[in-house]
């Protein structure tokens, strides 16, 4: 294959942003290897101490395994994307600067994956878990001009985000019981406690649910096939080695919290088996490249979940090993799909065939990846199935048989994918090749070759993989665990099971008539009544509900006011119910000038009622003025001359402005806009006769509630220690005599400054509103 010569790929090699992210991932990979060999490290810093949160990271076995995955697969996929993304943008006629919507999120994603892999605190785990969901939202929705991408991005965010919330609830339950979020401490506490209580089981189930949703397990798997709307490198990274791996990572990390409950581990077994079966069966029926791979991912993570359900040394070690082997193979296959699409423009298996003639190198390296996934010898994949068979057969015979069927399914859909792509007759694709075959950038094949090479290496020299899985199992179980794999040329159980699986797979491949109707029926049933439907109708329902609330709340001022008053009133009422009433209310004494105050307050109350009874705007304004001036007099009588003077001034100004507004356009004289447009004015008052008693009632209730609250608060005994004496004492020091003035200008000067700002903002608002009117 010749060196890349096209404009786009030449541009790709110059893109410093892309290469920076790719090199950072590579650097992270090398650093992770060194750290792992060095024995890891632990970082434990206080974070939010009142909440008992700590920044607790530990680069242990699990941390090493997933950090190596995130950075290693990341480096390969990013290198691939340096060539892929410019072509992708080119095809969509999008500007090159859109790569800024891609690379930073990819980088942040791998960083949060590494953080997630090492986090030792449930809340920290939740935060990083959610961060990966946020990144995935932007990455899946990268082709934001396409509706399918946007829908898929939102679905992934909502579904996995809801999962993250269940994890937080589980964490909160555990914290309530044991007073810590730290996973190692919780594990210790739970094991000392003995058999799991119901609350522990619920908490463990919630955490497990979050993990299962993230790993796209049945029945909440539907977001993953939709997420295939993402550009291929995103699928290859997120949906093989990172995002979906985060789920089983959480299971591995919190395993000691989950294993105390037999219910939860049994649940893992059931969900995992269902995912293997449903994912595998539907994968066999799909036509789109990435759809086949997405359903196979669901099925493959089902294996891992089953292994954690089996548990123990065999289960935990096999699960860790499986994750690595699967990630290598699956990301290589995803990248293969992307390269084929780039080369031919096809996206479906029915559109291609016989590509090995044009793309021999790609055919060879992806055959290795397929062999790894279907567990053929000489690849690391063989050992993943050996461990799987061993654990399953040890658990029970039934599970052993099921595991053979599962492996047969894997064999069938993997080779169906590969043979349809590369073997058979060359099919004419109705679309013109997007990229001439002879100009396909080499970088669209080399990363796949690198991943396949790694898979072959693992098949021959399995020691590093075995050590990695053993370390991860040690971290998962909390005590030393080792993984042993080897080729045994004997009729051992595992070998016989593998032979059975290959035979079954070959049979499935050779005779599609046997299973195709059933699998198609399953897929159709899933589309018609499956969980995706529930999600859609749930989302629609929420949309309608929010529109209905919006209509009620926003389209009518009255409802908006009621929406504030009513909950406020209910809260006050609850407060009253909860508060003891004995001695809470005092009448107080009336003496001296108080009689004048009482008289003025009576006048104020009468004037306030008058305001409500009249519809004439001028009377309203005048009655308002009586209220304001009456209160000003009350303030003067209570020894507050400053307040009285200001109130007098403000009242005068407000009255004048109010009168001006009212006098400017007498009410009812002008035609309304509706009448101007030729509509007949509708009789409102009659239509709302039922409301005649409603508003006064609400007003009376509000007034009554206000009265009770004010009375209760004024009846509280006076504080013995007061700041007033201090303030009076300090007033001369502030060069003033009026204590109120000094408080405003000096002691609480900042308040006054903000107040002046508010006035200034209001003045600007008034000017803006009035100057554009015809009145000025």
């Amino acid at each position, binding site marked *: 294959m010749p060196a890349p010569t096209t404009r786009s790929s030449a541009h790709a090699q110059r893109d410093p942003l892309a290469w920076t992210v790719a090199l950072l991932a590579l650097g992270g990979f090398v650093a992770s290897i060194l750290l792992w060999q060095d024995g890891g490290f632990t970082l434990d810093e206080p974070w939010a101490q009142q909440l008992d949160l700590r920044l607790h990271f530990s680069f242990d076995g699990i941390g090493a395994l997933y950090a190596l995955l995130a950075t290693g697969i990341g480096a390969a996929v990013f290198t691939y994307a340096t060539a892929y993304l410019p072509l992708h943008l080119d095809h969509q006629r999008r500007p090159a600067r859109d790569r800024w919507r891609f690379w930073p999120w990819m980088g942040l994603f791998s960083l949060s994956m590494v953080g997630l892999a090492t986090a030792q605190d449930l809340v920290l785990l939740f935060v990083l878990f959610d961060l990966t969901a946020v990144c995935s939202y932007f990455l899946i929705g990268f082709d934001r001009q396409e509706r399918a991408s946007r829908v898929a991005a939102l679905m992934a965010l909502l579904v996995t985000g809801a999962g993250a919330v269940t994890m937080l609830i589980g964490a909160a339950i555990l914290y309530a019981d044991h007073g810590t979020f730290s996973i190692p401490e919780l594990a210790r506490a739970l094991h000392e406690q003995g058999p799991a209580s119901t609350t522990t089981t619920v908490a463990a189930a919630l955490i497990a649910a979050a993990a299962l949703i993230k790993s796209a397990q049945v029945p909440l798997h539907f977001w993953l096939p939709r997420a295939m709307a993402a550009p291929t490198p995103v699928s290859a990274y997120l949906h093989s080695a990172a995002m979906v791996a985060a789920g089983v990572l959480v299971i591995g990390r919190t395993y000691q919290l989950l294993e105390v409950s037999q219910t939860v581990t049994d649940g893992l077994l059931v969900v995992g088996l269902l995912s293997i079966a449903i994912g595998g069966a539907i994968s066999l029926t799909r036509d789109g490249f990435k759809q086949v791979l997405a359903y196979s991912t669901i099925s493959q993570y089902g294996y891992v979940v089953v292994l954690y359900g089996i548990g123990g040394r065999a289960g935990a070690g096999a699960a860790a090993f499986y994750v690595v082997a699967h990630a290598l193979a699956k990301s290589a296959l995803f990248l293969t799909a992307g390269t084929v699409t780039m080369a031919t423009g096809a996206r479906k298996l029915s559109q291609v065939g016989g590509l090995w003639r044009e793309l021999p190198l790609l055919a060879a390296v992806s055959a290795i990846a397929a062999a790894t996934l279907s567990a053929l010898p000489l690849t690391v994949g063989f050992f993943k199935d050996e461990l799987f068979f061993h654990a399953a057969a040890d658990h029970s015979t039934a599970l052993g048989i099921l595991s053979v069927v599962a492996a047969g399914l894997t064999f069938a859909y993997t080779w169906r994918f590969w043979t349809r792509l590369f073997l058979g007759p060359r099919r004419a694709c109705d679309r013109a090749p997007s990229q001439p075959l002879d100009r396909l950038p080499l970088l669209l094949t080399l990363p796949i070759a690198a991943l396949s090479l790694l898979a072959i290496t693992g098949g021959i020299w399995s020691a590093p993989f075995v050590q990695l899985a053993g370390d991860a199992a040690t971290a998962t179980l909390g005590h030393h665990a080792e993984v042993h794999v080897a080729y045994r040329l004997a009729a051992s159980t595992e070998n016989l099971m593998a032979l059975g699986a290959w035979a079954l797979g070959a049979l499935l491949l050779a005779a599609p008539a046997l299973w195709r109707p059933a699998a198609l029926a399953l897929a159709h049933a899933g589309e018609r009544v499956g969980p995706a439907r529930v999600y859609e109708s749930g989302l629609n329902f929420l949309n309608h509900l929010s529109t209905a609330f919006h209509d009620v709340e926003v389209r009518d001022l009255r409802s908006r006011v009621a929406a504030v008053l009513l909950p406020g009133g209910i809260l006050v009422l609850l407060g009253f119910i909860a508060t003891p009433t004995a001695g809470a209310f005092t009448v107080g004494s009336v003496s001296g000038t108080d009689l004048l*105050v009482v008289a003025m307050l009576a006048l104020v109350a009468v004037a306030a009622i008058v305001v409500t009874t009249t519809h004439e705007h001028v009377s309203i*304004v005048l009655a308002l003025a009586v209220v*304001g001036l009456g209160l000003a007099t009350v303030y003067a009588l209570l020894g507050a001359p400053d307040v009285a003077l200001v109130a007098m001034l403000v009242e005068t100004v*407000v009255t004048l402005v109010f009168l001006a507004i009212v006098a400017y356009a007498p009410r009812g004289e002008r035609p309304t806009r509706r009448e101007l447009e030729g509509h007949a004015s509708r009789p*409102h008052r009659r239509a709302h006769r039922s409301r005649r008693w409603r508003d006064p009632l609400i007003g009376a209730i509000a007034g009554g509630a206000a009265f009770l609250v004010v*009375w209760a608060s004024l009846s509280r005994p006076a504080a013995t220690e007061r700041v*007033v004496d201090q303030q009076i004492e300090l007033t001369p020091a502030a060069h003033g005599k009026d204590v109120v003035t000094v*408080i*405003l200008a000096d002691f609480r000067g900042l308040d006054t400054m903000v107040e002046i700002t508010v006035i200034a903002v209001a003045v600007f608002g008034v000017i803006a509103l009035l100057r554009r009117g*015809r009145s000025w």
Partner: protein
Amino acid sequence: MTLIFAIAAGVVFGAGAFLVLTNDLVRVVAGMVLISQSAVLVVISSGLTRGDAPILPTGDKTPSDPLVQAMALTAIVIGLAVTALLLAIVARVRATLRSLEVRELARDEAEHTAELEQSLDTMHEQLASDEAKEEQ
């Protein structure tokens, strides 16, 4: 006196709450004014001491609590700003929409929003059909 203050504040607040719920924008503004008056009255009456004005020299008698007076001043001035803004909005609404009836304004707005949404829907349908054509 405690009871008297509470009754007065309650009556003024209730009148304000009733007015805010009415159909006429001018009365709504009047209601807001009354509610803020009631609040100022509560602040002033919550003073711990009552007596002469807190202006030096105060003599032997305890003066009125100056702290609540400072707060009441702030509340009054903010109330003025809010009232001015509300009145300006009222003037503006009448100048442009020629109505101060809350229900009528709400209905007009609802119709306007419906029109907007309809045109938006038409646009979406157009886009969708374009996409479908491209697919074919």
